């Protein structure tokens, strides 16, 4: 029940005087407060609804319509039905981009959560954990474009990573080579995201009563057992929310890939494209005639992917809430 529900029900009993009609039927007459509320209902709601409809719902519907057309952004728009979708799934570049998106969601996401859980275990008992948390959160504050550019210079030939590897006697790896570029992007995404999710998970861990951990100590549980039997079950709901947040943001990952792998105003190699870059590439066509229909179809597929994954995550994460 919402707060307004409660208000209304209370108002129905307390504010509204009742009277009988000639036929004896009881009718409600709105109180002055309720009448004023009614008058203000649409004036108060309209701006928000208008903004939502014009800037979100309208463009979304237009995107859906656009995905059924062929359009260069100017000139005539030709209705093509589901052709854009058919062509999308026949396009090896889209299929590869889609696979990369799944790699980001599941691969980078899995690694991010693994690191976050590990850090959660370590940080819980650590002195100065607030400072450590801030440091971990730092990559999330810095714009990912900046991090992506620095990341590129770190990993390039003769860069810091290369120099350190050579100093340690390790074999040189061509990190920015076409064959390794996407792997480095995945590592970069894990690095920039881990602090954010660790911070959220740590906030949940802070709410867990310390006596439960004291009980574990008495029972001789190690850190992993404490995590498995106390921490994880008691922050399960928060993990679920984090998983949804990650899925939504992972599908939209754009600037890190674009800034890290692209340069001189050019799109990166298609081997590192995800669906977001594919959509951008279609719309702006790397200098050719734009394909807004195809770009819109790709955007709709992204939206559908988010929808499906969020529903699956919610179903998978559904548990009875643990009371404590």
């Amino acid at each position, binding site marked *: 029940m919402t707060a307004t529900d409660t208000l209304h029900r209370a108002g129905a009993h307390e504010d509204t005087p009742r009277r009988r009609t000639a036929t004896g039927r009881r009718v409600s007459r709105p109180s002055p407060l309720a009448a004023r509320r009614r008058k203000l209902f649409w004036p108060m709601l309209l701006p928000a609804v208008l903004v939502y409809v014009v800037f979100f719902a309208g463009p979304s519907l237009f995107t859906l319509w656009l995905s059924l057309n062929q359009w260069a952004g100017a*000139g005539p728009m030709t209705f093509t039905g589901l052709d854009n979708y058919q062509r999308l799934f026949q396009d090896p570049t889209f299929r590869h981009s889609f696979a990369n998106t799944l790699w980001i969601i599941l691969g980078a996401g899995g690694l991010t959560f693994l690191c976050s859980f590990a850090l959660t275990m370590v940080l819980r008992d650590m002195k100065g954990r607030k400072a450590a948390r801030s440091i971990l959160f730092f990559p999330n504050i810095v714009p990912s474009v900046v991090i992506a550019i620095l990341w590129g210079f770190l990993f390039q030939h003769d860069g810091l990573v290369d120099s350190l590897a050579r100093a340690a006697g390790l074999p040189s790896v061509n*990190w920015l080579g076409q064959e390794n570029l996407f792997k480095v992007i995945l590592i970069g995404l894990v690095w920039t995201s881990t602090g954010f999710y660790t911070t959220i998970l740590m906030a949940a861990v802070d709410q867990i009563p310390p006596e439960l951990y004291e009980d574990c100590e008495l029972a001789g549980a190690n850190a992993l057992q404490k995590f498995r039997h106390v921490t994880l079950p008691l922050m399960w709901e928060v993990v679920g929310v984090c998983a949804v947040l990650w899925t939504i943001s992972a599908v939209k990952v754009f600037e890190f890939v674009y800034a890290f792998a692209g340069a001189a105003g050019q799109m990166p190699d*298609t081997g590192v494209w995800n669906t977001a870059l594919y959509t951008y590439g279609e719309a702006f*066509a790397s*200098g050719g005639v734009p394909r807004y229909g195809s770009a819109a179809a790709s955007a709709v597929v992204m939206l559908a992917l988010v929808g499906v994954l969020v529903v699956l995550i919610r179903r998978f994460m559904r548990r009875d809430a643990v009371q404590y």
Partner: protein
Amino acid sequence: MSAARQFTTATEPSRLPSRRAVLGAMFAAAAGLTAAGCGSTATSTGDGSSAFTYWSMWKQNEPQAKVIQAAITQFTKDTGIKVSIQWKGRQVVQQLAPTLNTANVPADLVDSSDRFAYAQLQATGQALDLTPVLDLSIPGETGNTVGGVVPAKYRDLSTTDGTLWQIPYEVITTQLWYDGHALPDVAAEPPATWAEFTELLARRRAERGDGPLALDGDIPDYAAYWTYYAVLRGLGPGAFGKAATDKSGARLKADGFVDALRHVEKLVSGGDFTKGYDGSKWPAIQQKWAKGKSDFLLLGTFAPSETAEFATSGFTYRSMPFPAFTEGGDSSQDISLIGFSIPKKAKNTAAAQKFIAYFLAKKHLQGIATQAKNITPRADIDAPAELADAQKALTEGTVVKTLDGVKETAAEWYTKVFLPLNTKFITGHLTAKSFADKLAHDSAAYWKTAS
């Protein structure tokens, strides 16, 4: 049930429209507003307006912007026509595109790279034919017209089906750049053929202990220049473009095409490219080149301005064309152009056209050479010293649209099919034969589904 719904049903029936009706109307209005940009059919006429709006691809602090701004100020003084200039940056035509279908196109004049003008204006039927501008007199130059000062070989590259969709004011070409101070012998007598060039490379490689060719391989276009020029020299102008659009892919694996690719393959396998070219972040390699870490850089005429601040003391910019494969073989220069276009539905076309003619006057246009350090289309404006070799090549030789124009006419093929394979080839992961075979196969598959 929502709070709002309960609230309304608890009160008297209202004369206000139902929420469903209101929301429905608003959705319809929003959809209408959103789609409005696609439905306009209004047209405009060119008139003798006293003002026009100009959207530029430059940012206000760039040298080109300063040259254009000075010309605008003088133009207003001389003609009384006010110019509202907006420095939009490189995405200027993309920003303009959503308005082109409406009755209120906000720009009467726009400048951009030729491929963007083609894709967003000409290919969508939104470019005004500028052919009448060719007859306009150049103010202050008796007897000179726009058509007289902009050579036909440039205009032809901006003409499609009889429509002149752009009039250029800056020309970019690709050359092999080197330090004339460090390589005086090359400056005195540049290699004219491929054999002389590879002999020079072998010598320099032995002296350096590293490949003498600089290439930022993470920029797919830069790697593509090598392949494109090899095909251009091997098969002549237009061959690359024809192969690109060959629906069967057969031209891409024909003997001549593979032979041309083998010239590049030998450079890769022979270690002629400098270490790290396949694993660096642009502009690392071109900056290292300017510091003398390698000898030759295949890049556009923007190379000197991009690398000057990193160049070693005494660095003398010299350049030479990509060598002909045989003596007397193809030596044409690829070019891309930057110039003016006018949207078809612009309102003040006459004033905008007048400015084009005004800016092409030598006294205004030469700022592009002297201040912005670039080549102009006018042969009587000397390029800056560092671009003198490139201008000479343009003046003396034939010109061809860079990459045979595939970035405009087959952009999707170029981006999705050609570039990824080409990067594999240039970085040594494919031989010339396997590259050609795979390119042919993937191209045929692409053209089957391409719209």
